[in-house]
């Protein structure tokens, strides 16, 4: 569909300076791609994304090493959300998830996608802490606390993940 293909009534914006200005601005690199209200849908989409689809692209070799591990078999067709909320999430899979989120941040230019990745990063850390496991990486308590506070303050975060991160943050405070 280009203006010449459209109903003349529908191309009225193309004949007006304001419409032309909007079209001319379509290539601008500034500004968010999605509305703030859509962030919730994006986060839900991330939680429901299958682990294998996203992680495969970046960590195929690590997944290949782990795929025969018994504790990982049950997660092969599961989602990120399933992993984070599992009472006994496999440590290595949380670690891969954390690294995947970190690489998305390093290579990504989109601020909204980066926000999703940051939330996922801290959710992975939180899941490991709540499951009573060792830390996924070298972040200290102060850094984690800041990250957890940032994550739970996102209006688009779902209640279950907010609760998970809150529990992890509380355990940091209590020194566990």
């Amino acid at each position, binding site marked *: *569909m*280009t*203006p*010449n293909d*459209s109903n003349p009534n*529908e191309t009225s*914006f*193309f004949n*007006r*300076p*304001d*419409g*032309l*200005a*909007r*079209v*001319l*601005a*379509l*290539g*601008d*690199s500034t*500004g*968010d*791609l*999605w*509305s*703030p209200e*859509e*962030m919730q*849908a*994006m986060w839900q*989409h*991330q939680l429901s*994304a*299958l682990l294998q*689809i*996203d992680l495969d692209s970046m960590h195929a070799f690590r997944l290949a090493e782990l795929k025969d591990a018994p504790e990982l078999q049950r997660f092969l067709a599961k989602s990120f959300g399933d992993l984070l909320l599992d009472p006994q999430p496999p440590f290595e899979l949380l670690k891969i998830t954390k690294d995947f*989120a*970190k690489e998305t*941040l390093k290579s*990504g*230019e*989109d*601020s*909204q*996608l*980066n*926000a*999703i990745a*940051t*939330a996922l990063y801290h959710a992975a850390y939180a899941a490991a802490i709540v499951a009573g496991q060792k830390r996924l*990486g*070298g*972040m200290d308590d102060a*850094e984690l606390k*800041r*990250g957890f506070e*940032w994550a739970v*303050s996102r209006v688009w975060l779902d209640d279950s993940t907010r609760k998970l991160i809150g529990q992890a943050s509380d355990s940091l405070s209590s020194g566990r």
Partner: protein
Amino acid sequence: MDPETHKLSEVSESSADFPGTIWLQVTDRKSVIHKYRDALRVYLVCLLAPFPDYRDEADDLLHDFILKKILQPGWLEMANPSKGRFRDFLKSSLRHFVASESRKREAEKRGGKTQAIPLDDLEQEIPGSEPDADSFDLAWLQLLLDETLHQMEKSCAVSDCGHIWNIFQVRLLRPALEGVDPLPYPEVIAQFGFKSPAQATNALASAKRMFARHLRAVVAQYETGDAAVQAELEGLRLFLARTAPAEGQKSRPNTKSQLPRPNPQGSTPPLPPAH
């Protein structure tokens, strides 16, 4: 091909009439003229509007302008980038040509005796913005954007990236052209089958970059060099802001029918350390 000079290394530069580096530019510009003659016609019609005796002469005058000026060897080379924009050169040249032609015709009618005629006024510089020039620039911009969208759609079809064109339409182009709401995120992922936010975001970002690339390529058909292309785009933006100041000064309207706004929760998230 060197994008700056349009120079083909294999083109001979021994021609006395058309050195190889310029010939390709001239050829490109002929195709530009062919594409933008509609804009020139719009301008000409507006120029002639105050002169009833010449209103029906627009097509003939444009035809003669193209034959006697544009297609003449060396004429297009007078369009010097350092002297201003190419389309301003076209407008100014057409204006002078029309005044000159009308003088000749009037002189012929009077058996060779010349006298001042109203169209001499066309050669006077009109201070400030002129409606005639705005009509040309608007028409030029419409053709430019139409060509950009056409090239982008064609490029997506050829490279089997139809989904890029489609997501560009539903999220960006239709809202801009028709004032409709962008297709919501859940419907985007359902329609296109994106498996993650990264896939959806990357597709939409690619579409924007592709539009920007094609826009620059279309402008580069008549403006030489990155700086000239950038200046032309900026000039067109300023022109639109001037032409529609009420719209240009508004922030995006606070209605449903709008493109995404900056995220109010967009504070920079804490970045993970390098471990």
